[in-house]
């Protein structure tokens, strides 16, 4: 934990109302300002107590505080360093250790994740019957079962998708772990939209995890290994721009420079799908979609990458589409990578809060640019017993509009 | 042993015996804060009860003091120091509020209306009285930025200062607003001033019934043409109310026209002059005068409800929920009970002939009375300043 970075905090408190756990619990120690204070205590010689570790673990890493901070405090760096320190210096209880081991051996590996889909393929009824029992054994397992969406049909993506019309660019595409396993249709839509906008899309089949989950959970070594592999994969594929449609992956890949060194990372430019589409501008015709859309700001898009305007602009440009804002849009939905698995109670409270505000918009469709958010909000809406609100990715909405479909979600 | 009279004269302040038949024994005419302090010290030594008074326009308000040895007239406290560049004025308590409505050579004013016409600065603070423009500018407490007060033992204290923005220490000025001379004698006040509006227009609307009143008042008050006042005048049972709004500033004509549009079909006109009843109290001098406080949106309903009591003339700041009412003495008991018990509004009987107030709690229930009593005990432990004039023996 870098004392210089800790010293940048002037204790103004502007981060407080943006912090999901402060919003939930109203305690200083569960705010960014309080956590930085705890980091300062630890750096100043206070041993890392279980209480301290608990407050660090409770941080979602949503980075809303980074956006809000007028002093430019790098909380993102600080919490990353802190998580690594927690993993080094703090011994967790057995059950917690087992769970974390399971998560980190499962999620960063697309093939293992795909294999897990089968046992999670429960009917609604089975899910309900099983839930209380799972809740008793482990709230985290219950959360995992609850989150899992119906398993979609497998979509096989080609290695290369040709541009429609004149080719304007050649880009690589990241398929992602969770995205690839649970939302292959989003990847398909992404590839089609890019192609229709004149891009040749290169999709290396042997992609692994980008390293985001490990990095955000205090496992920098695993993160470095995965990042190095991802970078090499795209270099071999011969692209210099990689389009990412999952916010968490994009924000991590944009920071490969910090992780692997600027020299190692400079050959590949990472862009978010919305960011890229806004940058190259539209060429394909948009067909009308008469639908009211609530756009959800994924933390790793809005806060970590500063991308708020582009997805809204892309959606608003679809004829007939009405865009509505969700109250408290900058507060995290509670998904936050593996947070909903490791801190299920807090995640559930945040999910409920978000679901309530999403439903209050009266929108027909919720659009989110991150698979974790989609799972999280989807399950929170189901939990409320409200009529399910369909959730789609920006790519799917654009895909539908470009192809003139009624809907594709 | 010096007599109290000799001791009072010994301060050098003009002091004379009161006219035969008056309640006080002596009347003093101090001209400076130091003289007030000297009088208060002598009064403390001789256990004299002191009642401060300005022009005397509101001396009959509140309970009659239980005792009064010395009437302290502030008429000679008349200094004035105007700082036009800072938009502030420092004045002595004896000056009429009306003298602060204009200053030579510069278009500034104290934006505080005095419905009594001749009231002094000290009396206005002590009774917290205000007129129509309270809606925009607030009352004396909102315009007061500094105060000098002489306590019962002769201590001279100031709080606030000469600058509008100031949060150092407790705001004693606010505490003294509405104190009815029971905490100390205010000798000087500093007010913030406002630029005088270049133009003024009054919009009068005559709704056909009380039922239309609340909607009308709410619409005028919420207008983005920003009226400075929204007043109502109701001559009593059987008659229709008149609502008048004041628009001041630049483009007042254009804004007044916008306000008139909100009349909702009721007869309305824009005038350059205030209606005759503007910024005046209803009823006759020497008669009953009550102050009502109610939610602004319930003014119309309240007037409808009190109709049953008998003829009551009501006037005041509808949009602020502060009304003056002048019921005839025989109607007073029913009126008080209707407002307090049936409507849940606050009502204070400011002035009433002695026989009319018999058996009526003049001030009504005051939630913070125990705290006020504790403040009084600290400021005036011997109960020598206007004793008993306020509620609960304060």
């Amino acid at each position, binding site marked *: 934990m870098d004392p210089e970075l800790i010293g*940048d905090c*002037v*204790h*103004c*408190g502007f981060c407080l109302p943006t912090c999901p756990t402060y919003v939930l619990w*109203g*305690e*200083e*120690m569960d705010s960014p300002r309080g956590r930085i*204070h705890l980091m300062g205590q630890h750096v100043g010689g206070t041993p890392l*107590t279980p*209480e301290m570790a608990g407050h660090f673990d409770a941080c979602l890493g949503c980075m809303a505080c980074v956006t809000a901070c*007028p*002093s430019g405090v790098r909380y993102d760096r600080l919490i990353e360093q802190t998580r690594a320190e927690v993993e080094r210096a703090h011994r967790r209880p057995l059950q917690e250790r087992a769970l974390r081991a399971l998560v980190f051996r499962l999620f960063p590996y697309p093939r293992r994740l795909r294999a897990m889909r089968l046992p999670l393929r429960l009917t609604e009824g089975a899910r309900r019957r099983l839930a209380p029992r799972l809740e008793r054994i482990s709230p985290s397992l219950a959360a995992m079962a609850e989150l899992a969406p119906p398993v979609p049909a497998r979509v096989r993506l080609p290695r290369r998708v040709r541009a429609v019309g004149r080719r304007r660019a050649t880009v690589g595409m990241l398929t992602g772990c969770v995205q690839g396993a649970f939302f292959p249709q989003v990847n398909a839509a992404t590839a089609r939209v890019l192609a229709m906008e004149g891009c040749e899309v290169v999709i290396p089949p042997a992609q692994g995890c980008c390293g985001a989950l490990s990095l955000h959970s205090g496992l920098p070594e695993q993160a470095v290994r995965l990042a190095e592999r991802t970078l090499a994969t795209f270099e071999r594929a011969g692209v210099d721009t990689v389009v990412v449609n999952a916010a968490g992956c994009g924000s991590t890949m944009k920071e490969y420079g910090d992780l692997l060194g600027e020299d190692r990372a400079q050959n590949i430019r990472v862009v978010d799908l919305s960011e890229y589409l806004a940058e190259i501008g539209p060429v394909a015709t948009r067909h009308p979609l008469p639908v009211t859309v609530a756009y959800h700001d994924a933390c790793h898009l809005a806060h970590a990458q500063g991308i708020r305007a582009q997805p809204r602009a892309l959606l608003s440009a679809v004829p007939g589409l009405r865009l509505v804002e969700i109250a408290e849009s900058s507060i995290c939905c509670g998904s936050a990578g593996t947070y909903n698995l490791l801190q299920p109670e807090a995640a559930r409270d945040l999910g409920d809060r978000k679901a309530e505000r999403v439903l209050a918009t009266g929108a027909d469709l919720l659009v989110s640019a991150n698979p974790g958010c989609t799972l999280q909000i989807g399950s929170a809406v189901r939990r409320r017993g409200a009529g399910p609100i369909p959730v789609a990715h920006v790519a799917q909405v654009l895909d539908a509009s470009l192809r003139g479909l009624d809907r594709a979600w | 042993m010096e007599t109290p009279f000799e001791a009072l004269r010994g301060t050098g302040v003009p002091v004379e015996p009161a006219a035969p038949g008056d309640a006080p024994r002596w009347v003093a005419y101090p001209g400076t804060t130091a003289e007030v302090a000297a009088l208060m010290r002598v009064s403390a030594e001789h256990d004299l009860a002191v009642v401060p008074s300005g022009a005397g326009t509101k001396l009959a308000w509140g309970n009659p003091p239980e005792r009064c040895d010395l009437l302290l007239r502030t008429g000679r406290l008349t200094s004035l120091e105007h*700082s036009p*560049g*800072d938009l*502030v004025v420092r004045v002595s308590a004896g000056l009429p509020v009306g003298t602060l409505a204009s200053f030579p050579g510069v278009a500034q004013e104290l934006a505080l209306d005095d419905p009594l016409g001749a009231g002094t600065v000290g009396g206005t603070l002590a009774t917290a009285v205000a007129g129509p423009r309270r809606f925009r500018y*607030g009352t004396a407490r*909102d315009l007061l930025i500094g105060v000098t007060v002489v306590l019962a033992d002769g*201590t*001279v*204290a*100031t*709080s606030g*200062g*000469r*600058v509008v*923005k*100031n*949060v*150092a*220490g*407790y*705001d004693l000025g*606010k*505490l003294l607003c*509405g104190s009815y001379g029971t905490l100390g004698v205010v000798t000087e006040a500093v007010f913030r001033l*406002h630029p005088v509006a270049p133009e003024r227009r009054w919009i009068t609307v005559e709704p056909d019934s009380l039922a239309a009143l609340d909607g009308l008042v*709410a619409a005028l008050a919420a207008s*983005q*043409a*920003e009226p400075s006042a929204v007043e109502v005048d109701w001559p009593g049972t059987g008659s229709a109310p008149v609502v008048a709004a004041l628009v001041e*500033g*630049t*483009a007042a004509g254009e*804004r007044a026209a916008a306000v008139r549009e909100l009349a909702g079909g009721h007869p309305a006109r824009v005038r350059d002059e205030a209606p005759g009843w503007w910024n005046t109290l209803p009823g006759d001098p020497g008669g009953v005068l009550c102050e009502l*406080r109610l939610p602004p*949106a319930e003014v119309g309903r309240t007037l409808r409800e009190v109709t049953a009591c008998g003829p009551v003339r009501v006037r005041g700041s509808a949009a602020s929920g502060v009304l003056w009412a002048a019921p005839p003495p025989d109607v007073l008991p029913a009126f008080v009970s209707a407002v307090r018990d049936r409507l849940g509004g*606050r009502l*204070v009987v400011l002035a009433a002939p002695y026989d009319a107030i018999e058996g009526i709690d003049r001030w*009504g229930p*005051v*939630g*913070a009375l125990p*705290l006020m009593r*504790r403040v009084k005990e*600290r*400021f005036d432990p011997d109960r020598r300043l206007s004793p008993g004039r306020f*509620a609960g023996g304060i």
Partner: protein
Amino acid sequence: MPDTALDEPVRRFLEILGPGSVITDPVRLRTYECDGLTHHRTSPGVVVLPETAEQVAAIVRVCARHGVPFVARGAGTGLSGGALPRTDGVLVVTSRMRRILSIDLPNRLAVVEPGVTNLAITEAVREQGYYYAPDPSSQQVCSIGGNVAENSGGAHCLKYGFTVNHVLALEIVTPDGDLVELSHTDPGYDLLGAFVGSEGTLGITTKVTVRLTRAPQAVTTLLAAFDDVESGGRAVSAIIGGGILPAAIEMMDALAIEAAEAAVACSYPEGAGAVLIVELDGPSPEVAHQFAEVRRICEENGAFELRVAADPAERAAVWKGRKSAFAAVGRISPAYIVQDGVVPRTALPEVLADIERISGEHGIRVANVFHAGDGNLHPLVLFDDDEPGAAERAELVSGRILDLCVEHGGSITGEHGVGIDKSRYMTKMFSEDDLATMQLVRCAFDPEGLSNPGKVFPTPRLCGEAPGVRRGAHPLVESGQAEQF
């Protein structure tokens, strides 16, 4: 380690609140050791997080019974150390009391709990065309309870006034644990007005009724760049002298502009020695007329560039630099002191020249950000805390600036409050008698001196015997640490 005198109170708090709302772990307690002013730090004896007014009253009754001091804290953003805890006391944090209880548009008021943020009130009524007028720079985080304690202002208080002008009623817990309502409709002493701005020394606010203000029809924001602060100051005087009362007039000098550029890239006109932000609001025809006047006045006084923001996005861009200024100086200086003083507006040029002289004499840079319309200065005194003696010199410069304010008939604080930080300056502004008279109010509310003791007033004073109860000499008096009053 918690004071053992707190053992019994803590047991009672656990009964009242349950374990999730009572903090005794020393590591956790330390995160509450300071508010927005970090150079005073004290770890509280215990932190409690009540959720209802009744719980606050019960907590205070426990404190009163055991003679334990208590300090209220909202969001902890104060800049005078007003919420600095006591090791031997209880910190009552209102951050879980954040419900908006009711909104009554026909009567233009809202009733909220003290932990609700200032901005949340506006957000709750914005769509209906209303807002809550006082707007301290920390409005998205600061709590309304804290605003009440400090009588917070903001950039727009030039026209709209302070918290005290917008609070219609309060529910408070008195230092003996009673729930009392103070209302603007109460006849008699304006206790409501006296309580607002009393910095937590008269009790704890548990409910606030605020006035809602109708949104103005038109808002125009103008950014004017001048060669120097003097010409900007002349323009301010001419605007006010011209009978215009803008919603806000803010000024920043070259150093403050440099900091803001470094932090938020606000792109203010290049080469400006001072920028003036003038915001006009009100009925459209009036704003249009005044805007023309202000523009003319700025040009006549040497403004070399004028920018007009007509829509909310452009307005936000103009305000961005100003609102970030405090935190932004961190980019140009390792450490700094935010000062808050007031001078009569006409004394501004002289005082600014004096500040420059003092700054030069001590080799300490001072960046100036101020509410020019009401003479409220926020000098940012910059120093390097690694340089030996620099902190002391900065402290000296900062104190000299307050002296200047008092010498010119101003105030030692316009909006940040006295707190722990400026209590020693109170004697420069007020006489012994003035302070003793204020102390009478304190003694009426809090004869035992348990509510936020040690704040606002320079020396701890005791209230003598509470009426009816006779006690022995107070230990603080015997040891010469306090004087009987």
